[in-house]
């Protein structure tokens, strides 16, 4: 009896050791042609239909698969893509696009004007009483004239070109949600939930100038961003956008860490309908108490760019750096403002923060410490991202929150429309008559100078009225293995893989 049990145990040990030794080396990458593994913090838990995409993380990857009539370049200008050229009528009501010939979709079929009309109508024709893409409610009609595609608007809009980057997709794609077919430099290869998302170079891409160079791009979902340095060093990841600073500092010299901006407005957003934030003096007191420089010192090692209103530097002509000095830190003034607003010994409020954004959680902690100096007690409440979306963003059941708001398109409107009192996305319940007037003027203005003047006026109101406690546009660090080069920063949520090349 005793011999058999010992033998059994020995057998176990043998099997384990054999199976472990058998597979010895870790599999090395030997796919045909060049390939690169790009780390992404979250999987594309989203539909792959370009017109229904919800998360910014999905949009930045699908940029490589779909091309629109026009496409944006790294410094925010538009160049003709599926259209060879475009004209905007003087009254900014009609946009005419001359379609390029011989452009192919990933499934080999030709891009026809009907596909273009189908894609644009799909976004603009109202379902229920609102179109798929909000901005398209201004589209009156679309029509095809031989190889020309004409879009006519209800009201004049000089900035409408920005919305013409919408993806053009084939009309007859049976499963747009799961099998994306577009006309971009890369085509969809495969996807495995929570593991990876693979795209391959589209060989007969129409635009040689913006053609892809690297054969295969594997978007790998990173499990734990706080220890990602190990995965980079081990070669499991070659390129990692938005790498936390703590991990970037650990990388050795076969990595380069590029620095850009996250292109979002990070601020302590105050629910203006919640007492005491309905009183501008209380909001201004918080602005005086807050010190963006100290926040940047802790959260991003002093590398962020301070902002004074709801526009970040990538918006060039609209960005007003002078607004940063509206509220230079002044504890006494803050206390005074609080006193005459009826809160001599401060008050208590909650800062609700989505738990998955470490920088926002850290910012909240620094702000809480700063507010303590003027007797204001800020309790930090971490909640899940989905709860934040529904409770804070849509139901507006919150007192204050730290979040970064990005722009869906390169139009100033996409950042400022949110503060119009009647706008559906006005989650801070901001209500200022002058602001509504200024914004309306800006929308109506035809010439660029006038439009910029009114948009700047909106920004000034937000700043002086202390709609929110503005902090920074967070820095973005990108770690890239020196085997690769060519990474470019974009003003919007875009990861352009076509620009990447193998370094010689």
């Amino acid at each position, binding site marked *: 009896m005793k011999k058999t049990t010992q033998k059994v145990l020995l057998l176990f040990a043998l099997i384990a050791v054999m199976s472990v030794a058998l597979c010895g080396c870790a599999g090395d990458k030997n796919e045909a042609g060049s390939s690169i593994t790009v780390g992404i913090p979250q999987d594309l838990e989203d539909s792959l239909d370009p017109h229904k995409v919800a998360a910014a993380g999905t949009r930045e990857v699908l940029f490589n698969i779909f091309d629109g009539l026009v496409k944006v370049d790294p410094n925010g200008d538009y160049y003709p893509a599926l259209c060879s050229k475009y004209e905007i009528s003087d009254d900014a009501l009609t946009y005419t696009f001359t379609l390029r010939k011989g452009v192919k979709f990933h499934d080999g079929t030709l891009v026809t004007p009907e596909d273009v009309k189908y894609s644009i109508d799909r976004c603009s024709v109202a379902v229920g009483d609102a179109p798929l893409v909000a901005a398209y409610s201004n589209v009156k009609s679309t029509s095809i004239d031989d190889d020309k595609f004409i879009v006519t608007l209800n009201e004049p809009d000089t900035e409408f070109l920005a919305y013409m980057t919408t993806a053009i997709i084939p009309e007859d794609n049976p499963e747009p949600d799961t099998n994306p077919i577009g006309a971009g430099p890369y085509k969809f290869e495969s996807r495995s939930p929570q593991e990876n998302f693979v795209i391959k170079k589209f060989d007969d891409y129409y635009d040689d100038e913006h053609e892809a160079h690297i054969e295969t791009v594997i978007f790998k979902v990173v499990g734990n961003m706080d*220890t990602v340095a190990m995965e980079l060093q081990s070669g499991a990841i070659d390129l990692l956008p938005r790498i936390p600073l703590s991990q970037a500092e650990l990388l050795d010299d076969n990595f380069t860490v590029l620095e850009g901006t996250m292109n979002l407005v990070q601020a302590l957003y105050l629910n203006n309908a919640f007492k005491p934030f309905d009183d501008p003096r209380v909001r201004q007191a918080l602005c005086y108490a807050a010190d963006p420089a100290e926040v940047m010192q802790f959260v991003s090692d002093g590398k962020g760019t301070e902002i004074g209103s709801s526009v970040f530097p990538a918006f060039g002509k609209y960005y007003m750096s002078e607004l940063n000095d509206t509220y230079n830190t002044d504890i006494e003034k803050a206390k005074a403002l609080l006193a005459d607003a009826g809160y001599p010994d401060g008050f208590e409020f909650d800062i609700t923060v989505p738990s998955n954004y470490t920088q926002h959680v850290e910012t909240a902690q620094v702000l809480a410490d700063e507010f303590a100096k003027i007797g204001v007690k800020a309790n930090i409440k971490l909640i899940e991202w989905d709860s934040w979306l529904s409770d804070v963003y849509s139901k507006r059941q919150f007192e204050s929150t730290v979040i970064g708001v990005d722009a869906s398109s390169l139009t100033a409107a996409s950042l400022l429309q949110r503060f119009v009192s009647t706008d559906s996305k006005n989650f801070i319940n901001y209500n200022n008559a002058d602001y509504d007037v200024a914004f309306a003027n800006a929308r109506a203005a035809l010439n660029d100078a006038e439009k910029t003047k009114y948009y700047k006026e909106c920004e000034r109101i937000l700043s002086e009225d202390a709609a929110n406690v503005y902090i920074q546009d967070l820095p973005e660090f990108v770690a890239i293995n020196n085997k690769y080069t060519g990474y470019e920063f974009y003003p919007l949520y875009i990861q352009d893989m076509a620009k990447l090349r193998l370094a010689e």
Partner: protein
Amino acid sequence: MKNRIKNINFILGASIICFMALFILAGKILPLRDPNAIDATLKFAKPSLAHPFGCDNFGREILSRVMQGSLSTFLIALGTVFIGTIFGVIIGAATGYFGGVIDEILMRVNDAIFAFPSILLALLFISLLGPGTYQVVIALGIAFVPSFARIVRGEFLKNRNMDYVKCARLMGASHLRIMVIHILPNTLRVLLNAILIGFNNAVLAEASMSFLGIGVQPPDPSLGRMLSEAQAYLFKAPNYALFPGLALILLVLGFGLMSDSFEK
């Protein structure tokens, strides 16, 4: 031979727990920096005389945070075990003693909670009552009920048809009286052991919860939260992970050795 090891464990365990108790108390008495006070100049200060454990990425004093953290982790574990034991005993006693239909139903509920991922339970409470320490205690407490109930049920089943129980019933003692006065004291030893082991698991569960961002809200420290925050700076400031880890290990080691010595 055997009981010599036993009381060494007991002494060792007890001394570690006293040390930790003193350590936590010191946090309250000594004039230390407020655990949440931020200071840019002290960012990642190395352990020195002025800052025995060094400072974290916010320049906060790790020493006072570990003290405060140990206290909150200890209280959470205590609360969890308390809830787990109370309901565990009630369910365990009822099912073990009466058996029959009650046993069947409660056991199924028990299995259901057992198979139910505790993370989802924690999320449920967080969204119901808002994030915070108490919600974690309730969530973990309920997640711990099944294991206690199972142990108590086993003991009650064993004792139920023992002779002394039959005699007590002969004497006309009510079921409740028998359960509380007769059977319960007999299960105390096993229960005590389960409590100690439960305590360790509670401390570890709290650490995992903090890793997922549920539980003690920042900037207040808990050992679990500090560990999960420290993993990003593992190489740059190993002391940030070392001291909370050490405190966690000592806390669990103390109770582990104690439970060892209670082993029958």
